[in-house]
C-alpha cells in the first residue's frame, strides 16, 4: 500500500504556482529528480488547475486583497502544498483558508520534498476515505431514525408490537425490492399526508 503510493508519486503531475525565480527552479529540479511531471505557472491561474495530482502554492503573494485566489483546495481535488517564507499568524490563517495539506520552506532544500508530497497525498486520501465513511454513517443514522418513526406510526395505527411493525416494513421492502429505509420513508410520507387531510384526527 505504501509502496504503491510511492510509485504513484513518481507519476504525479505537479503544478508549481510560484514566481519564476531560483527557488522555483530548485523546486522543479527536485520534482523532476523524484520523477514527477512538473510545470510552473505564474501568475496564479484564475481557476483551480485540473488534470494535476498535486499543487505547490507560493503563499506570500496570496495574502493581500489583490493576490487572494478565488479557488482553494477542493474536497476531491489535488492536495495543495504551501511554499513558505513566513510563518506568522496571517500566513497560518491563509493555510487554513486555502486548505493546505503540507508545506515546504524557503530556501528550498531537496530533503523533505518527497516526504511532504507523500504525507499530503496520504492526508488527502485519508480525508476522502473519512468523508465517505462519515457520509455512510450519517445516512445510516438517518435511516435508523426513519425506521424508528415508521415503526411508531405502525404500532399506533395498527395496534401491533414493535417486532410486528419491523417485520411489516421488512416484508414490504423485500416484496418491492427496495430498502427498509425507503419503505419507512414512504410510510412516514403517507402518514403525514393522511394527517394533513384529517387535522383533528
Amino acid at each position, binding site marked *: 500500500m505504501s509502496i504503491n503510493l510511492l510509485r504513484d508519486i513518481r507519476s504525479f503531475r505537479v503544478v508549481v504556482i510560484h514566481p519564476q*525565480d531560483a*527557488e522555483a527552479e530548485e523546486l522543479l529540479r527536485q520534482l523532476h529528480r523524484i520523477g514527477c511531471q512538473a510545470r510552473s505557472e505564474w501568475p496564479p491561474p484564475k481557476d483551480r488547475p485540473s488534470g494535476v495530482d498535486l499543487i505547490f502554492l507560493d503563499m*506570500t503573494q496570496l*495574502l*493581500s*486583497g*489583490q493576490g487572494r485566489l478565488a479557488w482553494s483546495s477542493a474536497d476531491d481535488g489535488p492536495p495543495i502544498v504551501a511554499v513558505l*517564507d*513566513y*510563518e*506568522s*499568524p*496571517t*500566513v497560518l490563517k491563509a493555510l487554513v483558508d486555502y486548505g493546505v495539506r503540507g508545506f515546504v520552506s*524557503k*530556501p528550498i532544500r531537496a530533503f523533505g520534498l518527497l516526504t511532504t508530497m507523500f504525507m499530503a497525498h496520504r492526508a488527502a486520501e485519508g480525508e476522502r476515505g473519512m468523508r465517505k465513511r462519515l457520509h455512510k454513517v450519517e445516512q445510516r443514522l438517518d435511516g435508523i431514525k426513519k425506521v424508528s418513526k415508521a415503526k411508531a406510526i405502525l404500532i399506533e395505527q395498527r395496534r401491533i408490537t414493535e417486532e410486528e411493525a419491523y417485520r411489516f416494513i421488512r416484508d414490504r421492502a423485500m416484496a418491492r425490492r427496495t430498502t427498509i429505509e425507503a419503505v419507512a420513508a414512504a410510510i412516514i410520507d403517507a402518514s403525514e399526508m393522511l394527517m394533513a387531510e384529517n387535522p383533528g384526527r
Partner: protein
Amino acid sequence: MECTPKSGEPWRVGVLFSQTGVTAGIERTQLQGTLMAIEEINAGGGVNGREILPIVEDPRSDPALFAALAERLMTEERVGVLFGCYMSSTRKAILPVVERRNGLLLYSTLYEGFECSRNVIYTGAAPNQNGRQLADYLTREYGSRVYMVGSDYIYPYESSRIMRDLVLQRSGKILAEKYLPLNATQKAFAPVIRDIRRKEPDFIFSTVVGAATAHLYHAYAEAGFDPARMPIASLTTSEAEISDIGVAASRGHVTAAPYFDSIDSEANRRFVARYRERFGEQERTNASCEAAYFQVHLFAQALRIANCMDTDRLRDAIFGQEFDAPQGRVRIDPDNNHTYLWPRVGRVDADGRFEIVAESPAAMKPDPYLVDHNAAGDADIRWRRQATV
C-alpha cells in the same frame, strides 16, 4: 568563512542598505549609523588592533538585488558578516544566502516577528516591544474606534492583526482595514480619507511604510482633520519620515518606537551631536538608525572576544552582550537572537520633535513568537506617563 585575517589586515564586513528606491530615505540613515559606529570603533584602535572595513553596496530597495549582492559579498568579497535590510521582503531574500554560507546578518529594523534564524541577530523591535504600548496609550488617550490603513505586504498585515486583537480586547471597534501598494500616490489615498471622514474613528492606525507615508499624512492634513482628536498612530513613522512629510503635517501624530532623537539622556545627546557633526546639521537620528549604530558596537564587542569571523563563535560571543545605547542599556537575548529594548511612545510637537508621552521604566524582553499580546503579564506594561503640557 575566513576566520582570523592576516596580521594587520582589517576585519571586512558587508553593508547592504538601499540608497535609492522606496525605502532609501530610512535606509540611508541606517547606513550612516553603521558607518559612524565603525568610525568610532576604528578611532579607538579598532578591534584587537585591526580596523573594521565596511564594504558598502546599494541594493536599491529591490529584494532580488539584496540577494544577489549578499551572494557577491559573501563569495567574491569573502565577507562573513552583513549589516543591512529594512523591509522584511529583503531580509527574506538574503536569508537563504546567509544561511547557506553560514554567515551572520545583523538586522536593525522593527519587523513582524515569527522568525529566529541562527544566522541573524535582530536589533529592531519585535511586535511585543511596540504594539501593545501603542494600543494602551491610544485607547487611553483618544478612544478605541480604530481605522486601519497600511501598505500591502506582510508587516502591515501582522501589525494590524495585533492591533485588532488589542483594540477588541479593550472593548474597541475596528472600523476598516485597507491596504495600498507600496508605490501608492497621494491620489490613491483619497477614497481612504473620504471613508475616514464618514466613519470618524478615534485614531488611525497606519502601517503605511516608505515613500507613501508622506502621502497619507499630507492627504490627512489637506482634509483638515485634527490630530489632537484623531491622530495617525504608527510603528514606523520616524524622524526620517517627518523630514519628508514636513513639520506642519506631522504635528500631533503618534509613533511607538524604542528610540526618539528627543530622548533626554547624556548618551543620546552625544549620539545626536556626533551624527549631525558627521552627516550634517539637518540630519536626524531615528530608531532604525540608532539600532544600526548600536548593533555595530555589540558586534565589535563580540568580535573582540571571538577574535575571528567564524559565525558560530561570533554568535556565542554576542549572546548576552550589553551596550549603553542612546535609548538605554540594550542586551542581546540568547533565547531568541533578539534584543532587550526600551518601548516608548512619542507625539510630534510643534517643532517636529517627538515629545515622549510614555516610556517603559525597564528594558523589555523580546518575544518574537507571541501571538496573543493581551495575555502578556502586567510587568510588560509597567510604565509611567510623562506629564503632557
